[in-house]
């Protein structure tokens, strides 16, 4: 039998397309029925939220845990980002996506952004940068320092002179307070970054008080689990999505947020 020309299959294609639409139409109500009886997912980021209950921009809590958040915790969307300051993709995410997001959706109360440290052992100065950022967060200067670290990643990533860019991001008085918090931390950096694994790094740097915050973030990241940086977790009204990773451009992320907010 000779094979049919493709043109003769057009009616069949139309039939299949119609079947696709019909199947969707039939599946929607059935699935909706199933969804109504399905249990809702528990919100797993509540621990993080309780860690940063105030969560307002530039809130300084010198005596407490470092505040590494942007915006209001009452925002309908929460985005938690696990990053390494020396990771180029993390810089791209911050510069191209998070920065416009902070200026728009965070400022307008739509998104609550939480930063989590997840320094990778492959980066020589990533752990030390996280310490500086946590020290800055303790004096309410996290946002300026985070921006400074990403803006100058190429420079301090090469020479390791992180203090230069941290000091430029705040007043001399604030930098002095940060330096006090960093006492006993800088000399252990070498041990941290030369460790073969993050686990070992954590073991060798316990005497630096700031490391407890980094390790707390890392432990949270392990539960996600974070396999690479940047990794982000988006929650909407207490429901958490599976973690995403890599760089997402702002127009695409904004489109997703808009679709959530229009629900």
């Amino acid at each position: 039998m000779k094979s049919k020309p493709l043109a003769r299959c057009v009616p069949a294609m139309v039939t299949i397309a119609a079947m696709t639409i019909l199947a969707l139409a039939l599946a929607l109500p059935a699935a909706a029925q199933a969804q109504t009886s399905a249990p809702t997912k528990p919100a797993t980021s509540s621990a993080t939220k309780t860690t940063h209950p105030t969560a307002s921009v530039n809130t300084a809590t010198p005596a407490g845990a470092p505040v590494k958040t942007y915006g209001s915790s009452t925002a309908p969307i929460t985005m938690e980002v696990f990053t390494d300051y020396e990771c180029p993709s993390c810089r791209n995410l911050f510069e191209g996506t998070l920065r416009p997001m902070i200026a728009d959706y965070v400022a307008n109360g739509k998104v609550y952004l939480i930063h989590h440290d997840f320094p990778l052992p492959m980066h020589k100065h990533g752990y030390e940068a996280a310490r500086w950022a946590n020290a800055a967060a303790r004096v309410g200067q996290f946002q300026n320092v985070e921006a400074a670290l990403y803006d100058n990643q190429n420079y301090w990533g090469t020479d390791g002179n992180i203090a230069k860019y941290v000091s430029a991001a705040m007043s001399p008085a604030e930098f002095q307070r940060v330096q006090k918090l960093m006492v006993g931390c800088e000399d252990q950096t070498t041990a941290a970054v030369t460790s073969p694994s993050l686990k070992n790094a954590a073991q060798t740097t316990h005497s630096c008080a700031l490391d407890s915050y980094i390790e707390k973030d890392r432990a949270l990241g392990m539960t996600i689990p974070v396999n690479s940086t940047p990794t982000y977790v988006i929650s909407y009204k207490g429901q958490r999505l599976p973690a995403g990773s890599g760089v997402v451009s702002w127009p695409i992320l904004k489109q997703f947020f808009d679709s959530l907010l229009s629900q």
Partner: protein
Amino acid sequence: MSQNTRPKWARILLIVGRIALAAIFLIAGYAKLKPQFAMLWSVGSVRTSLSMFAMQVDSYQMLPPWAVNAVAHVLPFFELFLGLWLLTGIALRFSSILSVLAFCAFMTAIASAYHRGLGINCGCGIGPVEQVGPGALIRDGLKFLPLALAVTFGSFWIRRKPAPNAVTVPEAAPSTQS
């Protein structure tokens, strides 16, 4: 018909193969469209799911935003369409070739992302969330692509017209030209 000249087991195997192939595409398409969070099925929930899939497509960093949206909004429906097409068995040679091309495209994207060192989720929609890398490539390259190729070859083999010398009736043999 030429199909009748093929063994029955081959035809059954082809049916099983194309149903399995159809299931892969139907599951992948459904996973990309199903409601996220605890939403009910609605136009809005589908829009949200497609926006979320667009984020996964975007993380491959291969396309501009407009093309990301185009792919993200077409691919899930294409997968459903192809799944149903394979399921019906109509023009199987064309649908199976299309499935081979689709898997080749997916594998190229995954290999490209892996080569560029992107630690991103596959976004494949089949099975648990998986990062791009050897695991995803092995799954597509050693399971799905061979299945699609087998169905393609099978569909051509089943439909192929037997060669004249395969007919074992001496009287019916064509006479030589004078």
